[in-house]
C-alpha cells in the first residue's frame, strides 16, 4: 500500500516536472478594450494577426436559443469547423453574406448543420426566417485570439514567444493595431480605445 502510494507520488512529480517547461514556453496577452459608444463593445475580438505554425482543425459550436445566437461572437481558427445547433422550437436558417458567403438552409429543432471556415475574417451570422438575429464568427489565421467579455477585458493564452501585430476587430468601430512582444512565462498587457 505504501509502496503504491510512493510510486504514484513519484509518477505525478515526474509528470509535473515534464509539463512545467511546456507552460513556461508560452506567454499570455491580456488587456482591456474601451468602446465609444460602449454599446458596440460586445462585438469585439482581439487577435494576433499572423503567427507562424500550422494548427490542427478543431470543432466549435454556435447554438440558437430563444432566437439568439449563443455565443454572440465565436472566435475560431482558419480550418476549424463550426456546428450550428438549434435548440429553439422553431426552424432556423443560418447564412452569412461575408468573406466566403455560405447558407446552411433551414433546419428544425434539435437538428444541426456544420460549416468549415477556410477563409479568415469576420462573418455575420444571419437567419433569414428571423431577420433580427445576429451573431458573428471571427476566423483568425491562428488560435491566438479572444472575444472580449462584458467589461471589455480579454486574455489570449499559450502564445509562443515572439513579436506580433496585435489587432482588434469590432462590428462598428476601429482602433490602431499594436505591436506586442511575448516572452515565455510572462504576461503582456495592452489596451485599445475603439471609436468611429
Amino acid at each position, binding site marked *: 500500500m505504501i509502496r503504491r502510494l510512493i510510486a504514484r507520488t513519484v509518477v505525478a512529480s515526474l509528470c509535473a516536472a515534464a509539463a512545467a517547461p511546456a507552460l513556461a514556453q508560452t506567454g499570455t496577452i491580456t488587456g482591456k478594450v474601451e468602446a465609444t*459608444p460602449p*454599446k458596440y463593445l460586445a462585438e469585439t475580438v482581439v487577435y494576433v494577426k499572423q503567427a507562424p505554425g500550422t494548427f490542427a482543425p478543431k470543432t466549435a459550436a454556435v447554438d440558437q436559443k430563444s432566437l439568439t445566437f449563443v455565443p454572440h461572437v465565436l472566435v475560431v481558427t482558419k480550418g476549424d469547423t463550426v456546428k450550428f445547433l438549434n435548440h429553439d422550437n422553431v426552424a432556423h436558417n443560418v*447564412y*452569412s*453574406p*461575408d468573406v466566403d*458567403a455560405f447558407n446552411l438552409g433551414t433546419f428544425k429543432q434539435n437538428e444541426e448543420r456544420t460549416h468549415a471556415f477556410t477563409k479568415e475574417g469576420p462573418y*455575420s451570422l*444571419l437567419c*433569414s426566417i428571423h*431577420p*433580427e*438575429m*445576429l451573431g458573428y464568427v471571427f476566423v483568425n489565421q491562428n488560435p491566438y485570439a479572444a472575444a472580449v467579455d462584458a467589461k471589455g477585458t480579454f486574455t489570449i493564452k499559450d502564445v509562443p514567444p515572439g513579436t506580433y501585430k496585435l489587432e482588434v476587430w469590432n462590428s*462598428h468601430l476601429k482602433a490602431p493595431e499594436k505591436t506586442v512582444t511575448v516572452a515565455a512565462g510572462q504576461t503582456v498587457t495592452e489596451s485599445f480605445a475603439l471609436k*468611429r
Partner: protein
Amino acid sequence: MKLPIRFVLQLSLLAAVLSAPTPAGAIPAFARKYETSCLTCHVVYPRLNPFGEAFRRNGYRFPGVDSDAVKQATIVMSQEANKKTFPNSVWPSWIPASVPIAIGFNGQAFGYPDKNASVPRANNGAQFVLDDLVAEGHIWAGAAVDDTITLWGELTFSSSGVDVEHAQVLLNDLLGPKHLVNVVVGRGFPTLTSFGPHSSFLGDIRMTNVPVTGIYGLSTDPFTLVDNYNGAEVTGVVRGRVDYSAGVSTGKNTFATKFNSENWYAHAGFKLGGMRLDGEGSPGPANAMKPWAETAVTVDGFVYHSREYFPTPGVTPASPTGNSSLSAGGAIRGQLGSLELDLGGYDQKHDRATATLGSLHSDVEFAELSYVLFPWMVPAVRVERIGLRPSGAPDVYDVHIMPGIAFLLRANIKAVLVGNIETTHGFALDATGAPIPWMGGNADWGNFVMAPRATSAPTSSFGEFESIALFIAWAI
C-alpha cells in the same frame, strides 16, 4: 357704428383658432430615445438651442452616426449585413423597442385689465377667461428606422376634434455629402427660414401669420404662410453654413371642390459664427453652462406662391373663387451670447383677397428681443406689425406688442406670461365698406384682435391693452 357683438366674438375666436399652429417639436420621445434631457435641444421648449436646431435640420438625427447616440433598445427588422444580400433581403432597419410617443397638453388663460378692450367688449365685459386653460392635447411620435430615414408625427386633440398636424417621412442624406440632400414627404410646416417654426420665446411660431382672406371674411380656413400642409420638400445643409429648402404643398384647400392648390416655395439661409447649421464637428458651447449662447448671425430669405379657394361671395349654389398670392421675405437672427434679436418680415401680394375680391398687398414685420437670464427664465419683448394695402381702399396697419417672460417650471413644464398691447391705424373693410376686426399673429395667446368700436371710422387710430395671457404647457 354699432358692431354686432356676436360677430366680433366669433372673429376673435376665429383668430385664436386660425392664426397659429400649435406647439410641436418638444417631444420627450427623443429624450427617451437618446436618454438625454430635454435641455440638450431646448431652451424653454419648444424653442431650440443651436444643437437642437441642428438636430431638427438633420431630420431629427444627432451629428455623426445617429445610432451611435441611441441608447433606447431597438428591435432589428433586418440586419446591417443584409445590405450585401439585397435585393434578396429587405433593406436593413430597426424600430424602437417601445412605442416612440410622447404626450402633452397646453392651453392659455386671459385676464382683461381693460374691460373696454376688444375681446371683453365683445364678451360681456369679461375680466378673465379660462375657457382655453386646457385647450389641446398632443400625441407626438418621433423615431428612426435606420441612420437615414426618420419619422415624425403629431396628433392634436381639441374641442374641434382630432387633427393630424404632422405625419412626415424624412429621407435623409440621399445624395452627395451628408446633409446635402434630404426629402421630406407628408404633412408638416413648410421650411421658410433657417430655424424651426416654433422659434419664439413668447409666442409659438417665429413668423407672424396674416390670414388675409380670413380678415376679409372670404374664408373660414384662410391661407397663412406657416401651417400644417400636405406636401413634399427638398431640404439640406451645404458645407455646414448654408441651408436651403424647396417644396410644393396643398396649402389651404378645404373647399369641397378640392381644386389643386399648386403651391410652391423656396428658402435659403446663411449662418456666420456659432455652431454649424448641421452641428457636425462642433467643439461644444463656448460656455458649458450656457449651451444656448453663441455669437452668430443668420440671414435667410424665402419666396412662396400660393393659391387658395373659397366660396364666391353671394353666389348660390356655392362656387369656388381662387386667390393667388406671392410672398417674399426674410429674417435675420443675431445672437450675442444669451442676448438675441430675431427680426424679419415679408410682403404678400394677393390678386383676389378683399371683401369685394379686389387685389391687395399685405406686409408683415416681426422682431423679438430676448435674453436668457437663467436656463429657466427668458424675459423678452416681441413686436409685430401687419399692414394691408387694398386696391381702392385706404392703407391700414396694426401693431402688436408682447412684453413677457417665458419660464421653465421643470425641464418639461413651461409657462409664458405675456401682455398683449395693440394699436391700430384703421381697419379692413367689408363688402359694405364697414370696418372689420383684425386677425393674425403668432400664437393662440398672442393674436391680433383689435375690433372697431361703435364710433370707429375705417381709418381710426387708437390703442388698447388687450390682455394679460398665461400660457401653460407640459409634455412627458
